[in-house]
């Protein structure tokens, strides 16, 4: 008998445990709240560092995202960090990449995200084994991965654009819930003239 927790302690422990279980499940499957920090979380226009955003996770069921959504995903360079950016193109779309001066098609299972940030390595990747069927020259694979410019913090905003697999998606930002003067819906917005959808 000695050492057994008393009834109120036990019942409050049990309710904490059940609350935690329900909370984890709701946060994994339905909706979750994240705090946007910068620069590790890269803000987009409409979402600033310090905001608390409501992230909807029902879209992960069928991966039905729309162009222009603000999405949260695990960073391809660091799986423990979440990144907030805007989704610009879906698989099959053609997108114009200004820095490389090329037009590229998004391969299946991937998407194109863009955001603004003030300090980071802008990382650009070519999809491996791109299905163009062209004979590749003898460049090694190492050269295919190019790292963009690195700017020190405070040097101004530099857009970050990358192609990521859809499997990295964490959710879609629907509303800002804090601070009170910024409570409201986060709208879908598309930059003009950058993408062309696949019609066939």
């Amino acid at each position, binding site marked *: 008998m000695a050492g057994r927790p008393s009834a109120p302690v036990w019942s409050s422990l049990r309710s904490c445990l059940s609350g935690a279980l329900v909370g*984890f*499940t709701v946060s994994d*499957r339905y909706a979750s709240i994240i705090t946007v920090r910068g620069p590790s979380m890269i803000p987009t226009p409409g979402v600033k560092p310090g905001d608390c955003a409501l992230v909807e996770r029902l879209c992960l069921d069928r991966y039905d995202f729309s162009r222009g959504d603000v999405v949260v995903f695990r960073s391809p360079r660091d799986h423990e960090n979440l990144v907030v950016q805007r989704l610009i193109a879906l698989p099959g779309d053609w997108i114009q990449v200004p820095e490389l001066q090329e037009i590229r098609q998004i391969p299946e299972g991937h998407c194109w995200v863009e955001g603004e940030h003030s300090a980071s390595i802008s990382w650009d990747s070519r999809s491996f084994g791109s299905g163009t069927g062209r004979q590749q020259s003898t460049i090694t*694979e*190492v050269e295919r991965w190019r790292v963009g410019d690195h700017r020190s913090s405070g040097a101004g905003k530099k857009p970050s654009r990358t192609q990521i*697999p859809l*499997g990295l998606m964490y959710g879609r930002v629907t509303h800002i819930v804090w601070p009170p003067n910024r409570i409201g819906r986060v709208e879908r917005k598309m930059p003009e003239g950058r993408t062309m959808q696949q019609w066939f």
Partner: protein
Amino acid sequence: MSSFLRRLAGIPWREIAGEARSRAFLFAQVLCAVHVVNAHVCSIALVRGPSMLPAMNLAGDVVVVDRVGARFGRVGPGDVVLLISPQNPRRMVSKRVLGMEGDTVTYLVNPGNSESSKTVVVPEGHVWVQGDNIYDSKDSREFGPVPYGLITGKIFCRVAKVT
């Protein structure tokens, strides 16, 4: 008619409703516990296909997947992992990790037909995955190094074989 109504009034509706509510809540808690364990602690999966022969069966293996190790970055070369396919996010595939970030990986480009090989350095935050059966496996030789965030678990034992 009135005896029927009297009998209806005699049924303890409040107690029944209270008990139904608490049973439903308990059921919901059990479902949540199952989800949390399945998604964050460990899980059972059915893996099939030719890409991991001979380690895994063609017809299928029931395996136990450890989610905690993968979540805290304790995946290393030689581990068999379950990951979300970079070509289709609704599919999970199982492959073996051959290289972590910074490692240099050499692989055969076309194993059945030629001896040529390529060498690649795995970029930051990525892993190189390959199926054990290199003749019939879609892996990093085709879609490149995959971000670590796509790995959902580490397969550590098999519990049953599907014949």
